[in-house]
């Protein structure tokens, strides 16, 4: 289980996270929702060790992550698919996937096969440069690359960003499949309704704090969610 306890993170004088607590139980998909600037990406960057926390703790299966180097965190099975995909544009698809398995020794043939099963298009394009793929294919590559590290917990930062609706649906479906195969998922989304459609449990952030949490059913019809995005009074 991944858990954050009262985590605070600041950029200079701006506190981007003002003490958030959240739990991602094994086997779940948990969505982290909120408008732009709410602190979602900051939370993921803190989990992955790119940002130092100023207070609180982050741990997975009772092992503290918040003082470890990013590569140590990957070794402990927490792997992030960053916002904007960030595939290595000049590396081939296969090289990108190999880099995903960097911290592991031994054969990666099985893992490659698994990724190609999820994303057959990557198998067809394994020699092509990552930068030459379409947006949707790059998103698949980014997810596939992270899967190469055999994550226990997969962190996904806005996988739907900039994708056409049809592709978004496809990506969400794959995320559900990956989860069904035993990978715990923490999904950051601005696209609230779509994230809620696959998540078991959700947290809503606003300006660095958790303002709402619950199961998808609980959150879906609440005006609070809408309000936290649009700042509209619940009455409308």
């Amino acid at each position: 289980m991944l858990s954050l306890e009262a985590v605070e993170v600041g950029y200079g004088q701006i506190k981007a996270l003002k003490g958030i607590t959240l739990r991602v139980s094994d086997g779940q998909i948990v969505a982290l929702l909120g408008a732009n600037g709410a602190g979602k990406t900051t939370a993921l960057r803190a989990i992955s060790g790119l940002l130092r926390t100023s207070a609180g703790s982050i741990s997975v299966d009772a092992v503290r992550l918040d003082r470890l180097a990013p590569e140590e965190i990957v070794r402990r099975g927490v792997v992030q698919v960053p916002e904007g995909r960030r595939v290595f544009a000049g590396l081939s698809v296969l090289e990108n996937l190999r880099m995903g398995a960097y911290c592991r020794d031994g054969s990666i043939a099985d893992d490659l096969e698994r990724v190609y099963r999820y994303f057959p298009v990557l198998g067809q394009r394994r020699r092509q440069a990552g930068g030459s793929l379409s947006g949707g294919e790059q998103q698949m590559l980014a997810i596939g690359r992270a899967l190469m590290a055999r994550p226990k917990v997969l962190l996904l930062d806005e996988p739907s960003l900039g994708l056409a609706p049809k592709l978004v649906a496809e990506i969400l479906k794959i995320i559900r499949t990956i989860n069904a195969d035993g990978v715990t998922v923490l999904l950051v989304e601005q696209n609230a309704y779509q994230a809620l459609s696959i998540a078991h449990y959700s947290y809503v952030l606003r300006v660095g704090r958790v303002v709402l949490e619950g199961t998808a059913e609980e959150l879906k019809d609440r005006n609070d969610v809408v309000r936290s995005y649009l700042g509209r009074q619940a009455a409308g």
Partner: protein
Amino acid sequence: MDLLSARGVHVHFGGLRALDGVDLSVPPGSIYGLIGPNGAGKTTLFNCISRFQPYSAGAIHYRGRDLGALGPHDAMGLGMARTFQNINLFRSRSTLDNILIGMHARLGNPLAAMLSLPSGRRREGALRGRARQMAEMFGLTDVLDQQVVHLPFGYQKRVELARALASEPTLLLLDEPVAGCNEEETRELCEIVRAINRDLNVTVLVVEHDMSLVRAICDEVTVLDFGRNIARGAPVEILNHPAVVEAYLGETVAPHA
């Protein structure tokens, strides 16, 4: 006539269409909002207006003048001023210097200034006087000589506004002014922007995703999504507009469908 108008503006980044024929018209004297979800193209349009971004088709007119061929430094001379998304101050300088740099367009003959000729010194004196007035207006008198990088966040925000207004613009462009602000700071900023609009008679165009700000201060808003206009109107109508809600929260999908 509109103070600022954009017609059919296109911007492409490689294959990506950041702006796909966007229109905008800002009437003089208003506080106008430009909103949309992440990646909608609002910052790109903002940068087209302030001349940081060239566009491939369409036209932008300011007071009837075509901006197409101008550079960023020309925009200020025409009476526009802008702020930046994540505060972009001259960090090594004092509050006073930042405001003075904001008055660059009024420097006069640079040679006279450089050589401290009498005319240059007179003008420098006048600029400094005016800069102090600006500082006073924004409650910055106590921190005039402090390096801005050491100032608290709220002060830095106000220095940036004071710097932008130092050139006495007719149009003020604000790029996500409340990014990183808490609710109290947001309220304070709303007050300041309203005062600028009312008391200094400055038209304001604000790019924002925080809806509480938009609702509180804007007379009218234009909503973009995927580089196109999707709605325009008064804030209250817009926030209930189905297309806008969908743009922000995504399509409604039945859970676990």
